[in-house]
């Protein structure tokens, strides 16, 4: 491309695919021609035609990546937020766009949406600021080739920049307003014009998401727990955990609130990795069902836990709770009593937390008149069946009328502790893991929704197998 013409001099910007010049060439124009007598190389010239890399230090870097069908993909490109780029098939370092089936591709979604993430599944899903699309791929992979990529709308409910999490049945994603979690699932209808739908899975649990969700992770059930759990961290540092049931449209959510401030959660197969902080100290944690403390770290006989030199810690040796210990300014564990033996190599230090279990008292089923929901009720008896128990606290909670001189709703108005050791047990040994059934009297008085709770306020194992509640009006 000619960029400047002087007296006897023409400045030319050589474009991609073009060769240079030689003195045997003739420069011809509409009315005359002249022999080229001298060639001088100069730097790149400003011109109206140029190719530029989508990714560079000058133009910015992508925020999301994925792999699918032998291609490495990038999206949320700083220089083109509505574009997706795929590498050539089986060539993850090759992004030169071409027309053949295995060539690299760059496609731009119409309407200028901000593409946040691509989710590969049977098809590819495009989560954007203006809705969700899917790219039909097909079993023959014919849909993921230059010229065959299509963006078919699933919903115009926009997604957020939170990376969606893949379940066995679809994708969990956070809506654009970051107020709820939705699931994108297949309808299961073959050859349907609407093969995918979106459903809200936090419809009755939005109050738990006190902040705005900022990360989602799903355990696949391959880890220590066979269940599939969903972990959502909120911007305010809280964590909400749900249990996802394949084939059902809902997820049961519970809040996790310990001493940690949760920043992010991610998953790799059955492993859940959390980025947390305790007292301002950042920690990367992995969920482990075999320890009963937050931020658990082995002392390894060192009497020292400098990473925890921010507070008191609880020590545990297996299931044996050694109690709360102070950490001095140097990170050393201060024994509770002189001569306390903390040399066991299996002692771990961490922060205790209190799992709480408070079931609802179910209502009588609708049908024949039993004065359902119109009479105060009383829990006469509660049966709790547990295993692997090292003790817990069972408590009656206040659920009566509210008033200035009355307890706050949910206050403990009576309790019974199931101790780790019974009379006759050898307290020099770890507490026995009991498998028992315990019966408790319910809270006194009648109220519309009587309450009780079970607290595991001493760190250690406990598995609740069954509960039974006997109620009367």
């Amino acid at each position: 491309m000619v960029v400047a013409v002087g007296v006897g001099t023409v400045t030319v910007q050589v474009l991609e695919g073009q060769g240079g010049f030689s003195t045997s060439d003739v420069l011809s124009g509409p009315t005359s021609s002249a022999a080229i007598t001298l060639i001088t190389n100069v730097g790149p010239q400003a011109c109206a035609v140029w190719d530029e890399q989508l990714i560079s230090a000058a133009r910015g870097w992508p925020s999301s990546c994925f792999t699918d069908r032998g291609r490495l993909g990038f999206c949320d490109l700083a220089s083109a937020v509505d574009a997706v780029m795929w590498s050539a098939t089986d060539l993850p370092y090759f992004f030169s766009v071409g027309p053949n089936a295995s060539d690299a591709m760059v496609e731009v979604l119409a309407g200028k949406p901000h593409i946040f993430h691509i989710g590969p599944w049977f098809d590819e899903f495009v989560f954007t600021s203006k809705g969700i699309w899917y790219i039909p791929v097909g079993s023959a992979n014919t849909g993921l080739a230059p010229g065959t990529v299509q963006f078919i709308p699933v919903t115009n409910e926009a997604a957020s920049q939170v990376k969606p999490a893949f379940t066995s049945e679809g994708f969990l994603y956070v809506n654009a307003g970051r107020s709820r979690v939705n699931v994108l699932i297949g309808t299961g209808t073959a050859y349907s014009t609407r093969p995918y739908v979106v459903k809200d899975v936090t419809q009755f649990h939005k109050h738990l998401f006190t902040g705005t969700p900022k990360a989602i992770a799903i355990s696949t059930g391959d880890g220590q727990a066979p269940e599939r759990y969903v972990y959502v961290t909120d911007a305010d540092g809280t964590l909400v955990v749900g249990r996802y049931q394949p084939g059902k449209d809902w997820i049961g959510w519970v809040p996790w609130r310990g001493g940690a401030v949760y920043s992010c959660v991610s998953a790799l197969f059955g492993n859940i990795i959390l980025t947390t902080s305790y007292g301002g100290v950042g920690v990367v944690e992995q969920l482990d069902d075999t320890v009963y403390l937050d931020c658990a770290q082995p002392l390894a006989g060192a009497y020292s836990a400098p990473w925890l030199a921010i507070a008191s810690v609880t020590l545990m040796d297996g299931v044996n709770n050694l109690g709360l210990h102070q950490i001095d300014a140097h990170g050393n564990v201060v024994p509770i009593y002189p001569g306390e033996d903390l040399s066991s190599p299996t002692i771990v230090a961490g922060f205790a937390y209190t799992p709480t279990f408070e079931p609802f008292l179910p209502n009588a089923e609708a049908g024949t008149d039993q004065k359902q929901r119109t009479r105060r009720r009383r829990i006469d008896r509660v049966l709790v069946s547990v295993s692997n128990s090292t003790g817990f606290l069972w408590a009656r909670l206040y659920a009566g009328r509210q008033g200035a001189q009355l307890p706050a709703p949910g206050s403990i108005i009576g309790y019974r502790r199931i101790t780790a050791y019974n009379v006759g047990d050898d307290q020099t040994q770890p507490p026995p893991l009991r498998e028992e059934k315990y019966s408790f009297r319910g809270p006194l008085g009648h109220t519309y929704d009587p309450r009780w709770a079970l607290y595991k306020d001493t760190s250690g194992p406990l598995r609740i197998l069954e509960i039974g509640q006997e109620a009367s009006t």
Partner: protein
Amino acid sequence: MGAAAAPVAAVSSLASLGLSFAGGMDKATADIMKGEAVNAQDQYQADQAEEAARFGRLQAGLTDVTMRENLTKTISSIDAMRAAGNVDPSSPTTATIEDWNRMLSDRQRTAAVVTARSQAAMEDASAAYLRQAGQFAMTTAGMSASADKMAAYAGLLGGIGKMAGGMGGFGGGVGAGDPSG
């Protein structure tokens, strides 16, 4: 009796000369007519070749236009299909695919048009050759005719000369008398 036979032979020889001369002139005429026939045939074939060249050029032009129209249809179809797939018109892959189709079409179009135009040029060359060949045939025929005429005249003159020589012998014979007579 011998004396009576000589004039008859002379007349016969003269007639023979006349026939020979006439035959030579006829051959010349035939050569010219043959040359004209060849020329006419060549001119006809040249006309055919020129017509074929004109048709070839027309066909090349139509092929060029048709293939350009097909390319436009192809690119338009690509644009329509991509738009139906919610792909933005600025998609680099779309541009690459369309460039690829342009390149393929240009290559095919160039090959087809160049072939047709080359064929037309060959037809033109054939026409020029045939016209030259016709002219050459005419020239050759004229030269052959001239040669035939020359040969006829030569034969005639030679015959006359020979006959004149013969006539001299006839007179001597009369003067000497026939010994048998």
